[in-house]
């Protein structure tokens, strides 16, 4: 019963390097989200997807790209990492009707440090 799985859980990058965070869910959810969490700032939405092949920008999309080629996977890419992208990243998913109520199912987070 995996739920939402994020990989990797920890990563250290140098400025300018690229990387991809993978989110996989096995609940057949339509909606998927990437949030970042910084001290004192709660969770901020980076990008989201309302279905396979669709993506949209959230509050803080700059410096990130995403892809949803398969319904169960949502990838978050950093093309040229910057120290400001040091954060904990959370993936979440939900059913469409849950989109009416709002409950999200979260992965356990990926801690990224950019030096």
């Amino acid at each position, binding site marked *: 019963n995996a739920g939402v799985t994020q990989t990797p859980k920890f990563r250290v990058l140098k400025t300018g390097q690229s990387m991809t965070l993978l989110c996989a869910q096995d609940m057949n959810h339509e909606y998927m*989200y990437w949030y970042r969490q910084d001290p004192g700032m*709660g969770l*901020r939405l980076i990008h989201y997807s*309302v279905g396979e092949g669709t993506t949209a920008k959230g509050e803080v999309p700059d410096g990130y790209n995403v892809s949803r080629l398969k319904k169960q996977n949502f990838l978050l890419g950093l093309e040229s990492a910057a120290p400001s992208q040091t954060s904990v990243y959370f993936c979440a998913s939900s059913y469409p009707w849950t*989109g*009416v109520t709002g409950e*999200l199912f979260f992965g356990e987070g990926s801690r990224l440090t950019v030096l």
Partner: protein
Amino acid sequence: EDKVVQSPLSLVVHEGDTVTLNCSYEVTNFRSLLWYKQEKKAPTFLFMLTSSGIEKKSGRLSSILDKKELFSILNITATQTGDSAVYLCAVLGSSNTGKLIFGQGTTLQVKP
């Protein structure tokens, strides 16, 4: 701009105390307000509130929503050290995408 503000940002209490956490919001097309508890890792769902004045309760935790004054409170009675966590308030402002707008969180520390 949609906004969710929580207070206090941090709180230290002793076991057995009662605490009240606050969440105010300014969100267009309000649908629901949710409370999450976050310990070391992923946030876990506590409550969803959609109607004013109806208290949701789960054990020692309870929450209520006031849609006229645009706020919610989360009460924890007889606190235990296991209640130590970050409590997140989030509001759903659109039913089409499921996007949640989160507050900054309240960090609660319960001392023995």
